[in-house]
């Protein structure tokens, strides 16, 4: 029999039972749509995270102090507090900038949370970030008005501040902030600049912070006397590389330098050097785990869909035993019968798969519109979902089709 005949007979068989065919397809529809939606949501999330990471700045190396667990818990003030083993000090950053080749700039951070007052507003728990003059370059930030502080201002501990854009609005409203004064505890700071909007990067809202010379933070806002005794600790050193510099060479040089300065071995360092690549790798392994989970969910839903097809095909073979007998009596061979039912199962899963593709693509669109979730529909995922549906149809259709083919024509004709 010609293939188009086979398909047309199978198609007629399905159309005769429209509602049942639709119900049978439902499992496959849901399975395929789920695969497409889940892959598009995970791909969307992945893209968003990748964009956030790249907006951290390019060619960055992060140096952070290491805390063994006990010390971390024991330290009353958390990272950088006295008693912690390991720690980075302000001079480490300067040493890296001066002694390591291929470094374009370093920036250090030490933060503290304080209550901030202006004539207009009082805000509690504002993050004050002590940094160095390289900060805007290293973190790719630009000023909307005024200027950033200089190396001299930092070294002389001049009490100046640069504001994030949303913090500036909260503290001064419509008044231009540059030239105004801010009280932080007993200290008065002069506003010398305001950053352009940068947004949330990682988990940090760059626009809600205040940026000051790090030495002012060390002098005025370091929590305890012990901390001051321990040295000017910083919680993070950013190192920006020259574009031509080799990442691995530079990291090794930084590690050797810091190990010498801290008098530790590289086997047991008191600091950790990470790169953006590490962040990306971590993120990739997270999304890979997420994706394999989705693959299992998708496989299970397609499996359930397949069992649904098998179930209905079994019912269909029983119900249509008489029809099978008639076809056999006029000359349908076992192969003809098998092919007919296999084609029906395949058509069910393909049509279900096609509907599932539409539901999936539409669902992804609705998710991104209503759920505010970013979705990216990959053509590969559509192909994957569709071909899995076809495979499910053949796999689960074979058994009932074979049952039909094995029927004895005499008994089939006698069947009521």
């Amino acid at each position, binding site marked *: 029999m010609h293939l188009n005949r086979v398909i047309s007979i199978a198609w007629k068989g399905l159309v005769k039972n429209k509602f049942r065919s639709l119900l049978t397809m439902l499992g496959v529809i849901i399975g395929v749509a789920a695969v497409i939606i889940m892959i598009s949501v995970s791909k969307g999330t992945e893209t968003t995270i990748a964009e956030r990471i790249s907006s951290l700045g390019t060619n960055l190396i992060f140096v952070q102090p290491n805390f063994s667990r006990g010390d971390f818990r024991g330290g009353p003030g958390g990272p950088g507090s006295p008693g912690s083993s390991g720690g980075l000090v302000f001079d480490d950053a300067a040493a890296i900038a001066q002694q390591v080749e291929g470094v374009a700039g370093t920036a250090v951070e030490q933060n503290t949370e304080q209550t901030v007052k202006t004539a207009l507003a009082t805000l509690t728990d504002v993050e004050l970030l002590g940094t160095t003059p390289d900060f805007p370059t290293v973190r790719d930030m630009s000023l909307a008005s005024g200027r950033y502080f200089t190396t001299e201002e930092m070294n002389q501990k001049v009490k100046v501040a640069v504001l994030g854009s949303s913090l500036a609005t909260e503290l001064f409203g419509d008044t231009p902030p540059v030239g105004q004064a801010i009280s932080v505890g007993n200290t008065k700071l002069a506003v010398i600049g305001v950053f352009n909007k940068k947004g949330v990067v990682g988990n940090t809202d760059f626009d809600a912070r205040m940026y000051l010379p790090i030495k002012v933070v060390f002098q005025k806002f370091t929590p305890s006397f012990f901390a001051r005794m321990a040295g000017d600790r910083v919680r993070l050193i950013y190192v920006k590389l020259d574009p031509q510099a080799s990442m691995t060479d530079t990291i090794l040089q930084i590690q050797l330098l810091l190990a010498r300065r801290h008098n530790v071995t590289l086997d047991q360092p008191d600091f950790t050097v990470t790169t953006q690549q590490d962040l990306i790798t971590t993120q990739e392994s997270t999304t890979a785990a997420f994706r394999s989970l989705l693959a299992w969910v998708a496989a299970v839903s397609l499996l359930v869909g397949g069992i649904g097809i098998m179930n209905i095909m079994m019912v269909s073979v029983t119900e249509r035993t008489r029809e099978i007998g008639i076809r056999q009596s006029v*000359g349908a061979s*076992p192969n003809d019968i098998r092919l007919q039912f296999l084609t029906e199962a395949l058509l069910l899963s393909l049509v279900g798969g096609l509907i599932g593709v539409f539901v999936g693509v539409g669902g992804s669109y609705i998710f991104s519109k209503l759920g505010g979730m970013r979705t990216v529909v990959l053509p590969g995922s559509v192909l994957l979902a569709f071909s899995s549906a076809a495979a499910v149809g053949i796999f689960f259709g074979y058994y009932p089709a074979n049952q039909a083919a094995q029927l004895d024509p*005499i008994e089939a004709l006698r069947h009521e």
Partner: protein
Amino acid sequence: MNSRTIIEIDHLTKIYGMGDAQVCALCDVSLQISENEFVAVMGPSGSGKSTLMNILGCLDRPTTGRYVLAGEDVSNLNKAQLAAIRNQRIGFIFQSFNLLAQTTALDNVLLPLLYRRDEHLTDAEQKQKALKVLQAVGLGDRVDHKSQELSGGQVQRVAIARALVNDPVLILADEPTGNLDSHSGEEIMALLTELHTQGSTIVMVTHDEKIAAYAQRIIHFVDGRIETDHQNGKFARHPSTVEGGNYAPE
């Protein structure tokens, strides 16, 4: 006239069941039927006539013995080969019609052509052939009617058209009038008689004497054996002269 042998069965036995529960449905039956014979097979239930029909129709295989259909030994063919024989050599007419439901007369008649492997007709040729036989059985104006839209007699005529469409060497009719009223039954028997006149070989199972009277030769089965096999004396008369009144449904 032509005396080509269509059916030749030789010491045919069909046994159902195993061990002590064995039942001999056909016991050592030998029989020859020539081309253009019209044979009625009669006998009470369980006499083996249905088993004979199933084997003659290649729906079943004998336990022992030989069955040669139109010169071809079909005793030991596999399922697919038997299907091909049914398709090309045999036309079935059933008591319960056995048309596909919700399917037009035309599509029902096309069915055997769809499964035909030895010749490849185009869609148009197949349709033409199907329409021709539908016209021949007097249903030229009913081709697009579905089975449930036709009367019993018309349904059986569609079944006859389906049986004829592949030009079979043998037409097997199993109680062809059993589900019909007397008027439709007469029409169907007239049609079968006409086919016989045109040269068809027909074997018909019935347990109704009046239906058997249309046949040329009557074989009686009892307990899986042939009891009598004789020419029908009345058949000397042309069937159309057989009084309609002597036919009645069961």
